[in-house]
């Protein structure tokens, strides 16, 4: 093994890294700032062409693309299980111009997807990245098919999208993608190592990335657990380490409203130390305070749970959501997530406690919801024969609700929502029971902000504006693509497309 002379932080970069870390409020979450005095020596314990941090959609796609190009590839995952948030979401993937859309006569285009995402993003989006992602969705879709991912034969309508373009895995989970992709990557020879946490990104005196320090045998959440080891990344390092929605301390600094009164849909490991390592390496932070609240979560269960696939795929598109105090609707149930979440969050009493809105739908509108059965079984949703019974159970203003239902039914029949402008993709009224209802609240769901990358997934240095050599990032740890509000099912699109690009480019310098 060749002895490497690279040091943890080159002198020329260290001051800059420090400033950047401080600017990103990330310094304290690392603890060690100057060098790695107590760490392992200068020798590499292991060497790979490409090292990938994170085993979700982005990391696994990057691994496959890098391996296809002949690179030796290591994927590290700090948690016990692989897949991160990618394994525990609803498996909804927006594809512009999919064969399923064509079969159902839905006209779509890359331009239209970009336009929808820009509108929700309120102009904060980095358009060049957005375009690459929208263009790449069709190919990312084919890529997943190649490795055995299966989708339902239906195109879903998600909030903020102007047309149905969302595909969903047959098992209704992102695991329907991460598991087959992970299996394929392993079969190709990619090494996956769990309980291995990134400690630091190593750079040579020019700032180029040389490898990483990890803690192997890490026991989350014990930060100091695990043996320190140095792993060389000869060709490239891909940071695909996700967002920080579960990191209450860090997210509250970015947005004080994101305190621990709010739950998160994310797994416990969705924390900020990967982002902090990137900032220390010189990366440019982008829009870190743009943190998304999911408007379809339930206060009656933890985490992501069953509610999103009931509200998002039944009650919101084909029913209504009301304020229990008035029985009235208060937002277009199919608006983008920010519009809905902001509206939901206003429902608090004088003491500041949530007054949970209730959303419901007639049985006719439940056909696309895969989770209703379990939602009913575990008390997240309830079934009622009449609107009156529903009103009584949730303590909804009865007269207000009955009048609202009459108005809504008239709008559906007329084909125009004169209250909130919701598009009726199917004519489903609230006339005939039984009805299914659940309480709605917001949960911290996605970090739109992150580090800046270019269209090659290269991480851009904050001071020079140039790519940091051999450093790539993709997925939720990157920022700017989704602006102020990511549209549902566009994260899988982002992660798969940019993950593939990162893997391809990270392998370019392989020996």
């Amino acid at each position: 093994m060749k002895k490497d002379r690279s040091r943890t932080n080159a002198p020329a970069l260290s001051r800059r890294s420090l400033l950047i870390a401080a600017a990103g409020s990330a310094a304290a979450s690392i603890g060690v700032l100057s060098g790695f005095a107590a760490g392992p020596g200068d020798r590499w314990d292991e060497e790979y062409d490409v090292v990938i941090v994170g085993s979700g959609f982005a990391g696994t796609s990057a691994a496959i693309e890098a391996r296809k190009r002949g690179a030796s590839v290591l994927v590290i995952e700090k948690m016990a299980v692989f897949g991160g948030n990618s394994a525990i979401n609803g498996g909804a993937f927006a594809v512009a111009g999919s064969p399923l859309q064509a079969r159902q006569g839905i006209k779509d285009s890359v331009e239209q997807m970009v336009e929808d995402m820009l509108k929700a993003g309120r102009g904060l989006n980095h358009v060049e990245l957005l375009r690459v992602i929208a263009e790449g969705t069709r190919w990312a879709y084919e890529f997943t098919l190649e490795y055995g991912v299966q989708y339902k034969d239906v195109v879903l309508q998600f909030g903020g999208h102007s047309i149905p373009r969302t595909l969903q895995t047959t098992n209704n989970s992102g695991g329907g993608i991460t598991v087959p992709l992970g299996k394929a990557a392993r079969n190709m020879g990619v090494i996956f190592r769990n309980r291995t946490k990134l400690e630091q990104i190593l750079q040579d005196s020019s700032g180029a990335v040389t490898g990483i320090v990890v803690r192997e045998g890490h026991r989350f959440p014990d930060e100091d657990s695990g043996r320190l080891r140095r792993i060389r990344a000869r060709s490239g390092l891909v940071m695909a380490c996700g967002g920080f929605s579960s990191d209450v301390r860090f997210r509250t600094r970015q947005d004080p409203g994101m305190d621990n009164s709010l739950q998160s849909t994310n797994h416990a490991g969705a924390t900020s130390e990967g982002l902090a390592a990137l900032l220390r390496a010189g990366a440019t932070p982008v829009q870190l305070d743009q943190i998304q609240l999911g408007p379809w979560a339930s206060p009656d269960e933890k985490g992501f749970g069953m509610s999103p696939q009931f509200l998002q795929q039944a009650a919101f598109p084909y029913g209504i959501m009301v304020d229990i105090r008035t029985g009235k609707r208060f937002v277009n149930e199919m608006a983008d997530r920010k519009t809905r979440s902001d509206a939901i969050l206003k429902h608090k009493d004088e003491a500041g406690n949530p007054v949970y809105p209730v959303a419901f739908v007639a049985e006719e509108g439940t056909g696309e919801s895969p989770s209703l059965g379990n939602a009913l079984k575990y008390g997240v949703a309830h079934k009622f024969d009449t609107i009156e019974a529903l009103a009584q159970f949730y303590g909804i203003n009865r007269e207000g609700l009955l009048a609202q239902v009459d108005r809504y039914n008239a709008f559906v029949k007329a084909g125009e929502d004169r209250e909130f402008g919701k598009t009726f993709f199917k004519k489903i009224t609230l006339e005939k029971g039984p009805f299914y209802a659940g309480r709605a609240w917001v949960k911290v769901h996605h970090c739109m902000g992150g580090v800046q990358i270019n269209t090659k997934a290269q991480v851009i240095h904050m001071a020079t504006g140039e790519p940091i050599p051999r450093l790539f990032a993709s997925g939720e740890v990157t920022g700017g693509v989704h602006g102020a509000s990511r549209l549902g099912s566009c994260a899988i699109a982002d992660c798969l497309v940019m993950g593939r690009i990162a893997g391809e480019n990270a392998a370019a310098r392989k020996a």
Partner: protein
Amino acid sequence: MRKQNIWALLLIAALALGFSFAQEASQRQAAVKEHHLGVSQNGTNCGICHAASAPEIPPDAACLKCHGSYEKVAQRTAAVEHNPHDSPHYGTTATCTACHSEHGTSGAICSDCHLFKYEM
């Protein structure tokens, strides 16, 4: 000369200390689950699961030595509602020790989001 002697003495002391630790480790008895009492010789045979000298979390291969394969484990719990060994999120590949703790309290990671109940 004298310096060298001190170093030699220190070395011997360190070796002796190390030896006594090793001996102590071999005599140590860990609390194990009832169904593992037999295979672990009442919790004295650490090596049956821990290949490393340090007490590290064993890899799944250590569990599968006796339990067969992920698929076999999944089949065994096929009748359990929401089969934790064949889930939409991890397929049959969930890391054993993510939920099962031999020397501590086990807990299904499913419970982070779901209200499922399992006997472990």
